[in-house]
């Protein structure tokens, strides 16, 4: 039983983590790490400043709490503080993975799954390099606060990831693919996914030529569209970057047009997958937040502190990568909502353009970039030859306004073992994706 200090808001997040990471390199097992630990993050707020402590000794939580309280200045009216008023006192238990917990799966079964999943890499001739990983992670959090919040919730992911390099003469291509699920039993078969990717990569590296670049219409795959939405718009929706600047708030006023009328972007922490959380790391329930609705700015991602500073409400986006860090506004699963067209319909509307299928990475400051891995020219309304593209780039706001077609399907996925980075906090598991997205013009090089 914790004694929360008087005149202060305080909370404690205890994380119990089970994880496994096993890796085959060139067909041989070279990595196996199995972890189980408990650790805690403690926060105290006095109305002016936050005081945090992280500790790998859960026996010291009370002493850490007392120590932080000694640094703070108690306030009799702390319950009236705008930040505290936005913090909840929910109680409850949302444990989804008691059954199917990764700790209950034998190591031998995990390694057997890894080896069978990697078989296509063994069989395939002409691969210069190959790796295959099995990764699981179960994180159970207990959240207690001075307001009476008492929560227990969990999240779990199981992944199989394959990466390889194919070469043809001087041409080379690094590609990867993955499958994921909430439990080991639900893990899809990686083999057909990997076989298809190997086939496509082999023909791509054999047949592709450097693109004859320029400004042209582009169709982004759900993966590419997801990275674009995450990098170019999602990070700008995290409210902490607006603090301390009234003019920024005016610039990002709700209702401002930021894209074409077809454009809807949401962040949704309730979606199963890497971005799922029942509650965020300050006890706020996850929810769907509309960032762009019908092309108009509709919301932003908050912690209690940023919500209080901007006179808005928390959105369940206060997240941290581990017990060592404080929660800050982060995305969960961020995606463009689907439209009504088909992929073929989107392609048929383009006489001379580009289809971006896979992407190595992206970035999004005022100018965004996507570094495609496999792309195809579109000619006369049909997919044509494979092309090597160095970079697709453009102005973020201008490009959002040029989205003129969305397919009807929604394909959400994660980063395949990586995650999102924000200054020191990397990697945070997030989901992204969307439909196929057609942009009227992008700069292709």
């Amino acid at each position, binding site marked *: 039983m914790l004694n929360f200090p008087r005149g202060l808001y305080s909370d404690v997040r205890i994380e119990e983590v089970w994880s496994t990471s096993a890796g085959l390199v060139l067909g041989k097992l070279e990595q196996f790490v199995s972890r189980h630990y408990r650790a805690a993050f403690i926060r105290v707020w006095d109305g002016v400043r936050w005081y945090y402590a992280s500790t790998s000794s*859960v026996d010291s939580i009370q002493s850490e709490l007392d120590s932080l309280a000694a640094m703070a200045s108690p306030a009799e009216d702390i319950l009236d503080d705008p930040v505290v008023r936005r913090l909840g006192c929910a109680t409850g238990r949302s444990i989804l993975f008691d059954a199917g917990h990764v700790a209950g799966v034998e190591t031998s079964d995990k390694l057997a799954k890894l080896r069978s999943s990697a078989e296509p890499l063994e069989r395939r001739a002409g691969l210069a390099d190959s790796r295959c990983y099995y990764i699981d992670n179960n994180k159970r959090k207990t959240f207690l606060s001075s307001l009476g919040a008492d929560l227990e919730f969990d999240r779990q992911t199981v992944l199989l990831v394959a990466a390889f*390099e194919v070469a043809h003469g001087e041409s080379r291509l*690094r590609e990867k693919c993955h499958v994921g699920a909430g439990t080991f039993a639900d893990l899809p078969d990686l083999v057909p996914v990997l076989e298809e990717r190997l086939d496509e990569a082999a023909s791509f590296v054999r047949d592709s030529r450097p693109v004859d670049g320029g400004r042209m219409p582009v169709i982004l795959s759900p993966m590419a569209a997801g990275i674009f939405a995450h990098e170019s718009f999602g990070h700008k929706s995290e409210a902490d970057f607006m603090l301390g600047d009234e003019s920024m708030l005016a610039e990002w006023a709700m209702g401002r047009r930021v894209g074409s009328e077809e454009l809807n972007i949401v962040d949704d922490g309730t979606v199963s997958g890497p971005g799922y959380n029942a509650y965020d790391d300050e006890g706020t329930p996850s929810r769907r937040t509309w960032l762009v609705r019908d092309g108009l700015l509709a919301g932003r991602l908050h912690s209690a502190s940023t919500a209080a500073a901007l006179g808005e409400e928390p959105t369940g986006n206060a997240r941290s990568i581990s017990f060592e860090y404080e929660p800050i506004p982060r995305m969960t699963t961020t995606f463009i909502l689907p439209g009504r067209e088909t992929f073929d319909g989107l392609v048929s509307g383009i006489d001379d353009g580009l289809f971006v299928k896979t992407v190595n990475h992206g970035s999004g400051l005022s100018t965004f970039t996507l570094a495609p891995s496999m792309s195809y020219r579109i000619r006369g309304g049909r997919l044509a030859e494979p092309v090597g593209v160095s970079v697709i780039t453009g102005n973020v706001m201008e490009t959002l306004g040029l989205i003129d077609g969305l397919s009807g399907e929604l394909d959400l996925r994660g980063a395949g073992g990586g995650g999102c980075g924000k200054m020191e906090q990397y990697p945070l598991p997030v989901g992204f994706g969307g439909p196929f997205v057609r942009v009227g013009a992008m700069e292709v090089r």
Partner: protein
Amino acid sequence: MPGVTRERVVIGTRKTTARIAGSEVKSIRRSDVLQTGLRLYDGRNIGTAGAIGSFDPAELEKRALDSISCGIEYPWEIQGPAVRRETVSLKGIGHDTLAGEAGSFMAAMRSKWPDLVFSESFTVEDTGISIRNDRGLDLSTVLSSVAVVLTYRALGSTGIIDGWVSAGPCRRWDPDGIRAEFDEFLEAWHEPVDLPRSGRLPVVFGESSLPLNRLSLELSGHRYGTGTSLLAGCVGEKVFSEGFSLSQSRVPSIDDCSFFDAEGVFHEGYSLGLIGGGVLRAVCTDRRTAARFSLPHTGSASGGYDAIPQVSADHLRVERSDRTLSELLGGEPAVYIALASGGDFTPEGAFATPVQLAMLHDGTRFVGRLPELRVSSHLFRMFGDDWMGQSADDISAFYDSPSMVMRMDVEKAGD
């Protein structure tokens, strides 16, 4: 257990961070984390287990023994007897005084730069890294440092970040000196200047930059051995400019790392030449990679406290020339890359990146802020014919910060 050799890796980190938002100290964070890893070797295989915080030694040993049965081969002899300690200390600031120092620093920054909104952090950190085994190996490094990282936006700017200034890891705290360097940079940032001309210009990178990161990938023994490195088959050959030499450097005070790798290997002087006078002498290997590809072992293993060591080409350092940045430029203005995000190399080595923030530098000082640019080149040109040199002097007086200068194609974004 007979026939089993034990090795223990311990990493202890004590860190205090003053977090800045809206140009003020908004939070203080302390962390104290102890990580312990146990490796067991039975002569054929390796097993590992780890713990965070306190742990039961018998349970840790049982998990490591179980891990041996996974069958991860490790038939190599582990590091033998050696006892050595290195300590790098910090002067002028500590965990208890960080918050006050950060507050004073930011008060001065707010006063001097009311048009800028600063974010990020001040951090004091003590890290202890040790490796000990049954064969008498007993190595440890203790590192203490302070670091300041401040990103900023101009009031009214629509971007997340307009620029950043930083100092660290520093071994002494000199707030007036650090602020004077920040002020010099920010004064120049407030002066928009045009690109002197498009075309091939001297470009200046810091050490931790995309070109060097890519070169480190190509120097991985795994890539070299599989033939996927652009340098494959080139050991003994001249691949870059005569003026380009590069080492694997693990000098704790300079490189802010332990002097030994994850397998407990270290070199006298804590440095090993990989490229000398443009000639590729060696690529980075751990024991496994060296054995797999019959390459010389360079002591280049990395890995977490509880992981199996794996090869990595980290801690690379370009050797300084005997010329200052000013002498390298010879009166020519240079493009200093301050923020470049989204660029990449093609698999064949061609390089291009947008540059969100570039500064004009005359060799002795920052002159002004350039428009958004694009720079491009090729790995073999950047470190080959277009290599101008590594400066003898530093950009900052407070941490190791030589300049890497090369000629590249530069154009304004949108041209």
